[in-house]
């Protein structure tokens, strides 16, 4: 039963990545195209833009969601690759626990970074 749930989350995470990465591409890398279409925005990698995004609740939430989805999607895929090497029962448990711990640690660190960003931007902005 567990595999069905994990796989469903994997597909769901893929869909979340598709949307949020699309958003990222549009905001960060397609500013020229957007300008061509009549949407004028400040330089996306400029300090003012970065600080503004860091202070926005919407962007903070999307950063955390994208981080969680990408970590889960990538680590689940990596786990599948390792499982296809036909490890024994003990090694399987080590892989499951190890990847879960590393994934959660990276998620916690990334979330902390996203939440701490507004304060850091304010301090750096002076």
């Amino acid at each position, binding site marked *: *039963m*567990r*595999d*069905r*749930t*994990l*796989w*469903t989350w994997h*597909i769901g995470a893929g869909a979340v990545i598709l949307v949020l990465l699309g958003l990222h591409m549009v905001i960060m890398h397609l500013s020229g195209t957007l300008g061509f279409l009549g949407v004028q925005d400040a330089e996306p990698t400029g300090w003012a833009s970065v600080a503004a995004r860091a202070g926005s609740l919407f962007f903070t939430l999307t950063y955390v969601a994208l981080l969680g989805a990408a970590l889960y999607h990538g680590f689940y895929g990596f786990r*599948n690759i390792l*499982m*296809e090497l*036909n490890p024994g029962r003990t090694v399987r448990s080590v892989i499951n626990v190890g990847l879960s711990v590393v994934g959660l640690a990276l998620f916690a660190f990334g979330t902390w970074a996203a939440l701490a960003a507004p304060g850091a931007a304010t301090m750096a902005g002076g």
Partner: protein
Amino acid sequence: MAGSNTKQVTFHLRRFEPGKDAEPHWEDHSIEVTPGMTVLDGLWKVKELSAPSLAWRSSCRMGICGSCGMLINGRPRLACNTQVSELGSAIVAVAPLPNFDIIKDLVPDLRPIFETHREMLPYLLRDDTAEQEDPTREYRQTPHELEQYLQFSYCIKCGCCMAACPTVATDAQYAGPMPLGQAHRYDSDTRDAGFDRRREVLAGGSGPWRCHFAGECSQVCPKGVDPAKAIQLMKRQLVSDLLRLRRRTPPAAVAEAPHGTMRDDIPAAPPRTVTEA
């Protein structure tokens, strides 16, 4: 004497006899091949002329029983369904299906796939045991409902898909295309009520989640079955069930007895008026 239609072909055969051979080896046997001759006919000829101890499985000779699945010139095929001429080669290499242990020569040990097949409960599961044991009438099913599983029911369990599947070759946990395809065949049959019981196996680690969708199983199937499609449809069914989106309908009921009326407008046959000359 070789006729104008015959051709000399070498059968390059993989031989192995447990207890005698340390490992499999290859043997060459040259025979005359006539138009229309199948690989299976060729094997019989080799056995008759030069290798009387050669072992393989075959039965119907017409692509129905699924016994003669072999690796022919590197591809899993039915020996009875493959003409030597269609291979376009003067060498016909024949080996047992890969991904299985070898019992002898060209005979693979198919027990693992049949054990997995059995775990999938490949039969109609219903509560009306009395009706099933002593049927009164057929279960009602529309042609459209039949089409949902019909092609999957053409599977002859020859094992060619299991031999072609790259995931089966590398992943010991994966159930494989044949058992999964057959589980879906019954899960998509409106007469069946066994989805919840099969789910116990299918939602676990040996289920469709390990399929990489290489599609080799469908490519190689000698009966034109599409097990890769069955596996993807099965994923959709199982995920829909997890998300509570799957429509649950009771299994098809026993059809009612026909209660049509007799037609009284059928004209009587005219009297014969033609006379013998």
